[in-house]
């Protein structure tokens, strides 16, 4: 018995010493640590989930010190670094407004190496707690398994709010919120029993957003701040493949118009200025006060032959929600002819101060264009920020704002050029953008191993009031409401 106890003590002591190898004889390295995702020198909100990461080196032990002004924490590991949620939350709460210094020491080939430290700037501007996105394999035309998920960005909870496995494998388009509010959202469900699923305060409706004058069902859309209207494009979308591998796919419209839907009276409102047969109009959004519609516009041309000449400008038309009337002229805010580039996906910040949009060399839907970058117009000054610190050499697009207009999320293919991931960027009070960081995952190996792309990430202050089972029921049992 004594022998067994002794043996047990030896084993436990050995295990403990192995696990908690303490750094000694440390060699300073003047390089930044090889970590993934790139969380170095990023600005983070105080309510974000732990920034767990991988160490991409041959270390057999790691010690990570996160030191702030009032608090600090030390974590050990060998490849994955995962911070305990409670300790992390406490640290961020106490260090809001401060810089955290992160020092990594790695035991490599029997030697401790201390890498150059980096910083996390913790800001008190909260990011909306919920993020919705569509998970889809980056196939180009045909889909199989799709899910729309909602993730709590303050921890690692993720739930599926629609799964096409239960919806006869139908295609589901991306889920969007109105005013970043979980009680107002919608997405298009295609297929035989499909329709636009509208969630207003948890009441789900299925809408057939098409009338005889429209060229297709409603496609890209956004809510009016009142929640009573939606603005949509109707498009004939053509997907084609590039011959050279780097761009992979070209998605362009041969026809497109913009319409407004009245969710209370089931009516579709149209304007000849938004359905000009010689012009392609798409990607509409309402302004923050709902009095204007921003959209992208390009002269119609012979496609695909002239695809490289297809360049969209950013335009604006007024909208009177009370009288349900459109303005009589279209203003151009950003002229493709003058810039030589093409704009898409304009998104107005909830405070009405900025428009964030995507710029590409050409084309309608350039998510596979590597040059696709985000830009920011300050609507007060008219100045354009090219967001150099935010953009990468791969596609950065599909963005949406946080309700306080301090954060935006976007899908970036920067890691591998193929799989989009949600990145968050901070805009401070002076309008300066900060280096973005990717949505943290419980297991930091997740992004390396997932074969799904995160599409249309959208932020929301509150949780969605429905479940996947509700969507299945509405898909199966409800007939879509007809629009006139």
């Amino acid at each position: 018995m004594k022998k067994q106890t002794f043996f047990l003590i030896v084993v436990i002591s050995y295990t403990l010493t192995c696990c908690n190898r303490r750094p000694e004889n440390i060699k300073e390295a003047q390089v930044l640590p090889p970590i993934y995702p790139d969380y170095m020198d990023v600005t983070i909100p105080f309510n974000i989930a732990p920034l767990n990461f991988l160490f991409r080196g041959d270390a057999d032990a790691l010690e990570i010190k996160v030191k702030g002004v009032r608090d600090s924490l030390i974590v050990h590991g060998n490849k994955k670094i995962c911070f305990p949620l409670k300790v992390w939350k406490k640290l961020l709460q106490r260090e809001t407004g401060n810089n955290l210094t992160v020092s990594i020491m790695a035991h490599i080939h029997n030697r401790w190496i201390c890498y150059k430290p980096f910083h996390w700037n913790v800001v008190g501007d909260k990011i909306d707690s919920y993020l919705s996105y569509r998970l889809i394999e980056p196939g180009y035309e045909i889909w199989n398994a799709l899910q729309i998920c909602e993730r709590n960005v303050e921890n690692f909870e993720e739930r599926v709010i629609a799964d096409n496995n239960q919806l006869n494998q139908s295609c589901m388009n991306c889920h969007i919120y109105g005013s970043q509010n979980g009680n107002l959202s919608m997405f298009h469900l295609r297929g035989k029993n499909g329709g636009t699923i509208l969630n207003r305060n948890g009441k789900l409706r299925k809408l057939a957003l098409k009338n005889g004058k429209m060229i297709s069902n409603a496609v890209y859309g956004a809510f009016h701040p009142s929640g009573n209207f939606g603005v949509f494009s109707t498009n004939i979308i053509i997907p084609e493949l590039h011959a050279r591998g780097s761009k992979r796919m070209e998605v362009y419209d041969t026809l497109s118009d913009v319409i407004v839907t009245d969710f209370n009276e089931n009516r579709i409102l149209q304007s000849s200025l938004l359905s000009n047969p010689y012009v392609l109009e798409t990607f509409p959004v309402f302004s923050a006060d709902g009095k204007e519609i921003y959209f992208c516009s390009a002269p119609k041309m012979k496609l695909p032959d002239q695809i490289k000449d297809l360049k969209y400008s950013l335009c604006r038309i007024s909208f009177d929600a009370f009288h349900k009337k459109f303005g009589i002229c279209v203003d151009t805010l950003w002229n493709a002819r003058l810039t030589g580039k093409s704009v898409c996906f304009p998104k107005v910040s909830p405070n009405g101060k900025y428009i964030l949009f995507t710029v590409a060399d050409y084309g309608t839907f350039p998510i596979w264009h590597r040059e696709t970058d985000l830009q920011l117009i300050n609507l007060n000054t008219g100045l354009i920020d090219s967001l150099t610190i935010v953009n990468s050499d791969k596609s950065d697009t599909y963005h949406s704002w946080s309700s306080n207009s301090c954060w935006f999320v976007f899908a970036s293919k920067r890691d591998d050029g193929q799989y989009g991931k949600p990145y968050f960027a901070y805009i401070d009070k002076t309008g300066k953008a900060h280096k973005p960081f990717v949505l943290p995952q419980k297991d930091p190996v997740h992004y390396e191993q997932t074969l799904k792309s995160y599409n249309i990430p959208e932020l929301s202050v509150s949780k969605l009031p429905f479940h996947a089972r509700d969507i299945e029921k509405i898909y199966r049992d409800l007939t879509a409401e007809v629009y006139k």
Partner: protein
Amino acid sequence: MKTINKYIVFIVIVLWALVWFFFFNKYYPYHLVHREQIQLFLYSSDYIRSYFQHPAWLACLTGDFLTQFFYFVAGGGSTIALLLLIMGVLFYWGVGRLSYFHNSEQNSKWSKLLKIILTVALMAWEALRNCGIDYELSSTLSIIGGILIFIVYDSIPKPWQLISGLVILPLSYWLFGYGIFGFLILATFQNIRLRRFLPAFILFTVALIIPALLRHTYLLTSKQAYQLPGRTFFDKPNLEREKLLKMDVEASYGHWNYVAKITEKEDLKSRIASYYYNLSHVRQGSISADLMNTYQPGSLGLFIPLNSYTAPLSIWCSNEVWFQLGDMTMAEHATLLAMIFSPKHRSSRMVKRLAEINLINGDTLAAMKYLHLLENTWLYKQWALKRMPCKEDKDFKSWLEQKRKSIPTNDTIRATNSEIVSIRNLLQYQPDNRIALDYLLCYDLLSKDIKSFMQDYTNYKVWEKGISGRIYGEAIIIGLTNHHASSEEANMYKVPMEVYKDFRDYTDLFAESRGNITLLQPKYGKSYWFYFHFANFVKK
């Protein structure tokens, strides 16, 4: 005597398992390799955790782990046979616990015989289900789990059985999915025989309710909830499909000469067979002579159109032609679709192909994504390490250089179903791409577009590239005849005189027989003239 009987029973079960081992190894090995290729088992916590998102996690995890052995010669047959053996022994043991068989000592011979028959039948049923193209081993393990749980349940003292059963049922569903019904059938028989109708009814009801209750949690359809991880109730061997998979698997190994031999030998009337016939013969450089030696379903034997109606096996094979031609965007498109439409949306073979495509394109980051994935596997780790950028081995480097020569240097856009636009684009900037040239010419021929064939043949000066073959010669004669070419023009194409002579004989016979197909077929059935005259395109 009892011991001898037990041995006999065991020997019968072992022999029956051996029969299936022999069958799977001899007649069905490529289905099993295919089943390994359509999954990607990762040794990572994130991946293992994904199994808990569905019921039957234990069966699925074990099944997918064991499926890796299908990669090896005889590995698939051995694994299935071993599981059938375990299933047989457990079932015999489990059935033996039923009081029907306990209380029938006076009929012990018959009861033993009945038990053996039931055991053999169950093993056969499960073996036949394993003949499905994407049948999952987890399905077999679910049944084994269900039987095992019954044995545990039956060992519990009778007064506790109902309560234990109520605990076991959700546990059983969680671990083994539809294996719950294996348990339920045995437990119901037992309870009814013991006249415990109420417990039988309660267990039966609870077992039926559990999948319905949990299906929303696991995001399943009603059907899936009751049959997961199984997909089919019954299947049977499909030996023609085995031949197609043989072509496909051997092509994935790069054994093109062997693929050519198989396609010649089997001569199947199938689009996939023609696809591999054409591809392997183009690679050998013999398609200009051999095009008509097999069944040709028009241009569908050259390319597999991808749309929502394309069968999964066709989608699976479709990337190969683009990869060989050098059109990496089309190859990547087809490969991603093959992966998306594989049962678990991840496939070792397609991930390997995606890594290769991106390495050829020089898209290192994308290639690394796939190579990192493969690094986390048991079977493909070394494969991935040998291809890591900057750490490639010599053979792979030279292969890569060779492949990069055939990719287009210009950019254009085309629809995914514009095969001919893609080939012309490849040839425009790489006129020496011999595979693309043969494909272009064969496309013209199989579409009976002699005008385009003559133009392409002339534009690319095929006779100067050392490409000659009787079928091309036969088509040229049709082209020359169609536009009454001069003898100077005819000489340019260097068609052998014997082909002209045969053409005269063919036309004479055609005229004499008034186009009688039965008279022409014996001698000219494998000529292009015959195809040109008699092949009909039927729109389905």
